[in-house]
């Protein structure tokens, strides 16, 4: 089933709203790793790591490939790019509002000086 953009953003931001999951992504940003390698980094139980990985996979931030008995994990760009696009949109929005504010205040200053 194809998820809509809004749903994908919900999943992505919810997945990012946790320090352990962000740290897992940080680890995978350095390069792919097995589930065991990721788990070894954290003082969290294996089932808890599995739950975090499911959330990240569901959000499309992490992809799992089975190589025999070893599950390899790597980061996926697309969901993060969508989230970054959403944030960048608001960045541009606020920039344009601040530019408009600057114009308005500069015009008011010119009038006051007349």
């Amino acid at each position: 089933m194809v998820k809509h953009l809004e749903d994908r953003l919900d999943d992505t931001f919810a997945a990012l709203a946790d320090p352990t999951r962000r740290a897992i992504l940080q680890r995978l940003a350095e390069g792919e790793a097995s589930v065991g390698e990721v788990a070894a980094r954290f003082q969290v139980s294996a089932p808890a790591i599995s739950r975090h990985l499911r959330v990240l996979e569901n959000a499309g931030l992490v992809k799992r490939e089975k190589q025999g008995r070893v599950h390899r994990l790597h980061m996926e760009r697309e969901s993060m790019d969508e989230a970054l696009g959403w944030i960048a949109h608001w960045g541009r929005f606020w920039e344009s509002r601040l530019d408009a504010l600057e114009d308005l205040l500069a015009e008011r200053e010119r009038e006051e000086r007349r």
Partner: protein
Amino acid sequence: MTAAPAAPRTTLRLERRLAASRERVFEAWTDPELLVRWFTPPGGSSYDPEVDLRTGGDWRVTMRRRPWPSYEASGTYLEVDPPARLVYTLTWKRAPFGPDSLVTVEFHEIDGETQVVLTQERLETARGRFFHGRGWRHSLDRLRELVELA
């Protein structure tokens, strides 16, 4: 109109007569715990102050006005001459108040009271002039409340 010489457009100058000693006003400006009680955004608060009060030392204050995210004011002391004069840079992070500026504060003693003369230079944008004019007026009112308490 007053006959005062016209300040450059990029300079903001404010004066306040405070019924407190220069020492007390200077302390309020430079003691971290006192600084966050008056150097606050209108309708908001300041916290996590850091003050390294010496020439070349840095200062920093975090500000917040809910529901907006926090932002930071920081800078470097260029002149520290207690209780008469203070010069420091002012930089904003995560706040749209314009590029870095330079703040000079003079504390003049008049009949046991203090005339504060605040000059802020390098306000290059209309936004910066607007926000700082509003911000300082608010802050100096709070400073008055703080230092004029017996």
